[in-house]
């Protein structure tokens, strides 16, 4: 089951997008000027302008990518809920998908091997994606 996305969550805010675009344009202009300054022999100014241009360009690309990844609500598939059924006498353990009406410690039909009743011993969901650790 894939979760539906709420309206508007995949969009980068227009305000942020326009600022990023302006900064990007200025960065390109700064790099153009750097080239111009280099050609006329003003090497110090060329270096300063090139540094400003590169930093501004890198920052704007970074902000754009960050806001995209934040905005994307890419929900993974919801984990299935599983029911564990056990026979306490002969230790048989079965695992199946949850069915409405299941509950933990519910007696079920008789065991195939012995006459004892099977019992639901656990109902759970298993999350397989690893949580981010911070090494602290």
């Amino acid at each position, binding site marked *: 089951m894939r979760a*539906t996305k*709420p*309206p*508007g*969550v995949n969009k980068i*805010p227009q*305000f*942020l997008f326009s600022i990023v675009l302006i900064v990007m344009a*200025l960065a390109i*202009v*700064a790099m*153009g*000027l750097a080239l*111009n*300054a280099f050609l006329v022999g*003003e090497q110090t*100014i060329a270096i*300063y*302008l090139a540094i400003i241009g590169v930093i501004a360009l890198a920052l704007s690309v970074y902000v754009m990518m960050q806001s995209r990844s934040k*905005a994307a*609500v890419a929900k993974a598939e*919801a984990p299935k*809920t599983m029911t564990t059924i056990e026979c306490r006498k002969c230790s048989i353990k079965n695992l199946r998908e*949850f069915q*409405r*009406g*299941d*509950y*933990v*410690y*519910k007696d079920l039909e008789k065991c195939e091997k012995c006459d004892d009743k099977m*019992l639901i011993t*656990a*109902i*759970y*969901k*298993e*999350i397989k994606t690893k949580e981010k650790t*911070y090494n*602290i």
Partner: protein
Amino acid sequence: MWAVLAALTSQFGTGDSIIGQILSIVYIIFFIVFLFYGQKIQMYNMIREVEGQLHKLKFLRDEGRKAAIATINEIGKPTSDPTPRIDRYLEYFTIPPQSMDPSGIVDKLDHILDVRDARLKDEVKLMAPATDEAQTFNLENTLEAAMALNFIFKIVRHFYIQGKKTMSFYAIMQVQMILPLVMKEAEAYSSALKAFAEGQPIGDGAGPLVAGKLMHGHEIRKLHKDCVVATVPFEGRIAFVIKAEGPGGNVGKPGDAVETVIEENKKKITAVIMIDAGLKLEGEKVGEVAEGIGAAIGGPGVDQFKIEEAIAKYQIPIYAVIVKEDLGDAVSVMRKEISDSMDNVIERLKSVVLERTKEGDKIIIVGVGNSIGVGQ
């Protein structure tokens, strides 16, 4: 004017060319704009951020409402359209008692909560007449989750509109700062809806799960209110194991249940051990088991108060074992880590009982939490 600008722009070193001058003017304009309107720009940014999350909250609220309607139609077989009644239910509120003179406030709060509980259950019965007791409890839990989503959405919307109306930086900043926590809570309630609708055990049911394991196969009797107790031999002691009655979504009133068992066994109870789900701190693992002292029980505080009163009266020591999980885990379908930690909890329980009580002693073990999807 132009002379001043030319003088200023020449400071940037590119004043010779026309492009350089334009660029410098743009830089100066930017500087001035940010100097005077920086806070306003920041505020617009915050408003937009809150607006985005508000859309998401509205979506979660609507989905919750739809899920509640669908579940009631499916399980309750209503004779008429339950939508208007559900919409009315979502707007219910509870007024806590006046606390200017706090003496006796616990009884007042207890009474208000009882009235609320009875009223909401009656409403569910009217909406879904074909349900049994367990399903009524589950539907009530589903509607409460939808109600919580509705409430969160309305509170955030209130601050958003108020901030926009007054253009107050601090009004907007308040809501923007707590928004990540609010969203986490809303997402937790949203994921709880499915579990409640289907009657699946939730993370908060860790306590009842352990209690159910201990009392399974023993004679069970009902206690006030919506709780059950079984007398179980445990490591050479006599344990009165208490939990909310399952498998319907129900937390019962463990305060009253513990009080009753203590009064029934006057001066003979040597320890009370409570098992509950505890909120973990970031960095701690889900399903970790910890041990401590005190009444491990959440909620409005009425049950904690009653348990503390009862144990203080007879000077009974109280111990707590908790299973760590975050809010999202506590209200959504039980995670495997929590289910697997049950054996660890029982081992910890055994060590507390062996170290703190003597053979033949009478003890109380309380599995605190929502019994949804957990029988006994």
